[in-house]
């Protein structure tokens, strides 16, 4: 069987290892660390370098400590990396919230405030390199007062250490602040002064391919992927970490002729989507776990009334409110099994920003073709990251719903031998009026409480799953040597880490389903042949993925590496679990 194997663009498919730098910047609210990361990423993209940025907050989503971890490299990157190569920190005290996100190594460069003598936390590790200190803060005696922008100084020092010209920074700032150009001029003197500071250490000099690249977040990619797949209507309710899907669509969908409503809650959001799609218009919503819980009854309606819907769930640590800005993979059960009664739905998983667009296209394809709810499981780690990606050249035809004409017969829900779906009756079509219902109904759409009808109609609806399973049997991504003796099975945002794992661990092969339900079981059975050791890896305390697989196939002897979310899975952790060193990357 043919599955989609991992392939790199020709330009980077050479054997040269990835050269990359992990840069972390930690500060407090007002220091503007997010802006530094944002500008560095822009500058990298401009040079044809790849990279990604994740932002980490303290317990408050607004205000308090914040840090960005940015990784830049000369090949596509969708993993934030292991050790911190450069750490910029304005106050040692700010570090305490970021345990687990930052680790120094022997050659790490530390850039610290000249006057801050606070001890660095032990968990951070140590470096053999001398600390570089810079007068970021302005002091009145012992009290820090407002002064020149620290983030401009940090940006300048990093540019200098990276060997990036001042002009590149000016250009990135001009782009970022196109609405207030005076700001750039006001900040450049601060930038220049720090840029010319003495004895700034040099970092690994990365060379990009020179073709400017695009910076996109997972949520933006989801929104734009949906638009290129034909999205015409969106309704949503703000929720971390998915809100930017709606925000992107507020900016971009009406201009493309679509419509958008910010609903009063998630029940209404999916209700509006069901209503718009009942009207024949490709529609979707985006939410996170708590919202998905509210949408569950409506998911059943979408399936029962055979109305296409696309539901994006940017998973966060649950249950209840959980940890809204932290990632987890624990909505899998809900997506696959959630809801009362028996009803078919399809569930897809998102690997990274690049994959998100492709997944959205497939989601609409399945929803429109099979007239059922399609859930797309993203998570905070993909949704909130900024990733540098190649330009998009999707020229596929948009999926189009099979539209009813009088030749298609009188019964909206006719059971036909050969087809799992019926032509969709778009309101406005003469002669096509019918009753759609969440009540069990006959082939004509008339309400029925006949147990025989219920059995037959359930069977009719579930036929779609068989057809989808046949259509999607190759929707998997395999990586590594197909003959490798050890195997890892994972899904979703673990992709980036595992892609690097197999490069340093050739004894492993990796299986990642792109469709989680119906599960591509044939491809999986084929892939696992000859494995001597197999492990599932996931961010779910219960091990939902492992247990789900156990319900489908024999998982005896397969180890489960499952933990609750918060931080994404790292190579270090995986190495410890598997008893294998998490091989150092090339520096």
């Amino acid at each position, binding site marked *: 069987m043919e599955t989609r194997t991992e392939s790199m663009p020709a330009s980077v498919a050479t054997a040269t290892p990835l050269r990359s730098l992990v840069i972390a910047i930690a500060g407090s609210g007002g220091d503007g660390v997010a802006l530094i990361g944002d500008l560095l990423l822009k500058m990298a993209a401009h040079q044809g370098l790849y990279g990604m940025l994740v932002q980490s907050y303290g317990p408050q989503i607004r205000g308090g400590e914040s840090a960005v971890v940015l990784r830049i490299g000369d090949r596509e990157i969708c993993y934030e990396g292991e050790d911190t190569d450069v750490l910029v920190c304005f106050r040692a005290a700010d570090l305490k919230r970021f345990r687990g996100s930052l680790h120094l190594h022997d050659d790490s460069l530390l850039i610290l405030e000249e006057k801050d003598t606070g001890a660095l936390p032990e968990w951070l590790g140590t470096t053999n390199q001398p600390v570089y200190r810079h007068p970021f803060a302005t002091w009145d005696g012992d009290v820090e007062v407002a002064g020149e922008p620290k983030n401009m100084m940090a940006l300048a020092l990093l540019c200098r250490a990276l060997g990036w010209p001042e002009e590149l920074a000016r250009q990135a700032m001009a782009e970022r602040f196109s609405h207030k150009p005076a700001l750039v001029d006001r900040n450049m003197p601060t930038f220049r002064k720090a840029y010319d500071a003495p004895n700034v250490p040099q970092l690994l000099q990365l060379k990009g391919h020179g073709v400017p690249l695009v910076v996109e977040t997972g949520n933006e990619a989801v929104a734009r992927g949906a638009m290129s797949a034909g999205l015409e209507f969106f309704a949503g309710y703000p929720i971390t970490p998915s809100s930017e899907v709606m925000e992107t669509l507020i900016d971009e969908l009406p201009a493309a002729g679509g419509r958008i409503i910010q609903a009063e809650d998630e029940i209404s959001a999916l209700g509006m989507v069901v209503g718009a799609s009942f009207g024949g218009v490709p529609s979707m919503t985006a939410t996170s776990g708590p919202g998905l819980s509210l949408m569950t009854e409506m998911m*059943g309606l979408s399936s029962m009334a055979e109305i296409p819907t696309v539901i994006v769930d940017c998973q966060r640590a649950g249950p209840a409110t959980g940890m809204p800005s932290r990632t987890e993979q624990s909505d899998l059960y809900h997506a696959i099994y959630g809801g009362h009664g028996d009803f078919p739905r399809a569930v897809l998983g998102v690997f990274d920003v690049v994959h998100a667009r492709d997944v959205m296209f497939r989601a609409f394809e399945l929803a429109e073709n099979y007239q059922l709810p399609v859930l797309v499981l993203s998570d905070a780690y993909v949704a909130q990251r900024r990733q540098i990606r190649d330009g998009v050249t999707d020229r596929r035809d948009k999926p189009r719903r099979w539209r009813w004409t009088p030749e298609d017969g009188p019964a909206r829900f006719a059971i036909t031998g050969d087809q799992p779906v019926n032509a969709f009756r778009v309101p406005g079509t003469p002669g096509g009026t019918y009753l759609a219902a969440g009540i069990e109904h006959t082939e004509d759409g008339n309400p029925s409480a006949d147990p025989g009808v219920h059995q037959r109609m359930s069977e009719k609806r579930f036929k779609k799953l068989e057809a989808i399973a046949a259509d999607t049997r190759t929707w998997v991504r395999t990586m590594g040597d197909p003959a490798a003796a050890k195997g890892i099975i994972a899904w979703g945002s673990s992709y980036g880490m595992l892609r690097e794992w197999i490069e340093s661990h050739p004894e492993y092969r990796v299986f990642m389903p792109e469709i989680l339900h119906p599960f591509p079981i044939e491809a999986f059975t084929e892939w696992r042949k000859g494995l001597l050791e197999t492990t599932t890896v996931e961010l779910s305390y219960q091990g939902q993925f492992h247990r789900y697989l156990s319900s489908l196939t024999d998982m005896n002897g397969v180890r489960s590496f499952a933990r609750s979310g918060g931080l994404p899975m790292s190579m270090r952790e995986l190495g410890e679990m598997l008893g294998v060193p998490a091989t150092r990357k090339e520096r």
Partner: protein
Amino acid sequence: MKPKDLRTELLPVWCTGCGDFGVLKGLTQALSDLEIAPEKLAVISGIGCSSRLPGYVKAYSFNTIHGRALPIASGLKTARPELTTVVVGGDGDGFSIGLGHLPHAIRRDINLTYIVMDNGIYGLTKGQASPTTELESKRTRGLAGGDEQPLNPVLLVLSAGCGFVARTHAGNMPHMREMMKQAIEYPGFSFVHVLAGCVTYQPRNYSDQLLQRSYELPAEYDKSDLGAAITAVRDGRFALGVIYKRPLEEVAATAGATADEDWTPPDAVLKQDLPTE
């Protein structure tokens, strides 16, 4: 098209004497008067006895889930503004489980007509108290909530800013026909409160009791006066007629869905070239 041509072949499940028969008739009469073609009409409901109504009207009908008719209709009307969209349901569906959606649908002023058949009881689940069941009725019959005040739905929609509010009685066909016609014609969110009898879980003379407590608003009543409307719905009696109608020159400024009626539906819907394989 005659009113009876707007009916499907499906026979209503309602009890003989149910007020909902009158509403079905009044609605088809109004639609017939307005010459709305079945294919240009969508009738959306939630769950309840009265929510079965869409199945009896020749239209693109949707009998959805309990309490959620308004969001579904709002999505439909926003995506397909050229469709006449009527939402129907009962007091439990609209004023209990689905109440949270009502002020927001009003706020958006999407051009929907929402007809609530208020019989003051849960009929389908066999006689529990609804948000509009009278206190005395709950107490004498031993229903839950004997110390909970009933809701005044018309006051509620007025305070939420509804631009068209009417009340009618399910036994008064000409009046109901007229109210529904005006509501559908109104170019924003319109609300019709129908006093409807329940012959099974309310006293047999309940419909007459409702009528006895009702009065028609006099000809000199100024329906553009919101203050007068609020006074009229607070005196314990049921004022019948158009209680409030926002002057049309004010409607255009607020009615989002009517401001751009030149909008054309998406290609995927209009084009006749979709595959029919």
